[in-house]
């Protein structure tokens, strides 16, 4: 295989791991609460701006790692607050379509607040490693991008631990499989909703720092990760976390290869192409389960 191909695969895996992270948050919220959250990418935007501020304040690689932690905290909290103030009051009375409209409203609100407070000028998170590159033999990449991949992996690993080993994790999985039974078994689903939304937003926030490290940061940047996260979620099956992990990597690699071998202009369209294809061929997603199973 030629090295350009492997190089693109590596680039794709790195970007894809960030897509996975943001999409897992989306798919978790959908799985547990049946809310399609179109504001997911805006949580990433808030995470990215958190990083801009922390980097301006601390800087260096310590600042970058601090950004990840700060974004997790800030956006996790934002998730908990929006769940409580925006989504929960409407959950029992409103239909799925209403909830989608509400999340779009939230997305527009966050976009405009960001315009207001941060201004329209794009920002960048500088490379705290001074552009150091790492040669992996068959391909090379910057140390910073490797760190992005690493942090996405660590975050996903922690999430898996949380969901599989903790009490709250078991409660979340039980609720996503059968909300009615979970309630009647003494699980307080409002608590489950709060934590799920908090964790789902947190993942988008951490993803936002990584996304903002790879791409530019501006108030309306959230739309793209939202759409990618939906592509990934549809690809992996709605509510399916493993599916979202693989789906993100697949989308990342597909974009990198498509951008290289087909045309750069089509790169962003690949996600939409995947959505259409999956919905036509296997609507439950590549890793989908039968409904209710």
């Amino acid at each position, binding site marked *: 295989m030629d090295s350009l191909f492997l190089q693109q695969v590596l680039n794709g895996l790195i970007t894809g791991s960030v897509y996975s992270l943001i999409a897992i948050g989306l798919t978790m919220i959908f799985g547990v609460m049946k809310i399609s959250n179109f504001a997911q990418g805006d949580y990433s935007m808030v995470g990215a701006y958190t990083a801009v501020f922390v980097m301006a304040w601390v800087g260096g690689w310590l600042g970058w790692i601090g950004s990840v932690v700060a974004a997790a905290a800030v956006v996790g909290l934002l998730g908990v607050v929006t769940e409580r103030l925006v989504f929960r009051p409407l959950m029992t009375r409103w239909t799925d379509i209403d909830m989608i409209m509400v999340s779009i409203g939230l997305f527009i609100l966050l976009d405009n607040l960001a315009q207001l407070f941060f201004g329209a000028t794009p920002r960048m998170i500088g490379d705290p490693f001074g552009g150091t590159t790492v040669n992996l033999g068959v391909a090379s990449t910057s140390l910073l991008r490797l760190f992005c991949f690493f942090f996405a992996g660590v975050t996903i690993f922690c999430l898996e631990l949380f969901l599989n080993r903790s009490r*709250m994790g078991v409660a979340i999985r039980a609720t996503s499989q059968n909300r009615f039974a979970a309630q009647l078994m003494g699980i307080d689903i409002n608590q489950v909703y709060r934590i799920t939304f908090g964790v789902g937003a947190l993942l988008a926030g951490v993803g936002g720092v990584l996304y903002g490290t790879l791409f530019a940061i501006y108030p309306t940047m959230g739309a793209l990760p939202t759409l990618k996260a939906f592509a990934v979620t549809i690809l992996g099956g709605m509510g399916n976390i493993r599916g979202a992990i693989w789906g993100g990597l697949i989308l990342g690699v597909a974009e990198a290869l498509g951008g290289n071998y087909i045309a750069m202009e089509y790169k962003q369209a690949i996600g939409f192409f995947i959505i259409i294809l999956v919905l036509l061929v296997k609507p439950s997603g590549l890793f989908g389960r039968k409904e209710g199973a």
Partner: protein
Amino acid sequence: MGAILTTDRLTKNFGGLTAVNDVSFSLEQGEILGLIGPNGAGKTTLINLISGAFPPSKGTITFEGRDITRDKAHTVNTLGIARTFQVVRIFSRLTALENVLAAMVDRKHKGPWSLVWDSFFRRACALTEDKESCATADSLLDFVGISKYRDEQAGNMPYALTKRLEIARALATQPKLLLLDEPSSGLNPAELTGQIDLIQKINAQGTSILIIEHVMKVIMGISHRLIVLHYGEKIAEGEPEKVYNDPLVVEAYLGGDSDAQH
């Protein structure tokens, strides 16, 4: 002894349909109370009301002297009422053990943050490594006789055993009152006998039971008393033999489209 559960003029309307109509009854401490009636009589709805799945349109529910009419499902459960479902509602992608553990989530802890805190930091991460909870869950699986399926995904278990898993899961919440919605439906005669034994074993440990059942052999065999619903109304109550021969009850069953006589 006294009543553990009392309903007073309980009514539930679904749009124009009155599924439960003015039903008052008491369940004595330690009792097995059978609830029968033709299909669509409102039996499951009555259990839904008691367990807090949805609120009644009218009337009150009192449990151990406390008004639980408006309490949420998880609160009702925490107070000591657990249930199983007519159509099994297990967590099919959790293992049998995890199903039972899921029902123990809120037992020892308070507040969402303590749930996260406990599981991650204080106890160095793990429900599945929490020896005490696991031992309790294991003993419950053993009690209902499905230890063999401990680490099996619940969705892959044989149907009859998922009904037992539901019972184990309900028991994990340490109920004082257990509501069983047709625990024998879909079981073969051998499994039926086992199910009766199990229910009596649970009752012998002091748990009061409200049981809905279409299989007459089961309900007549284990109930201390029976109540009969017909079109949402209570039409009879008392000793099983007497109720079974009550002309009103016979009429309801013959007139209805019930399969209870077979």
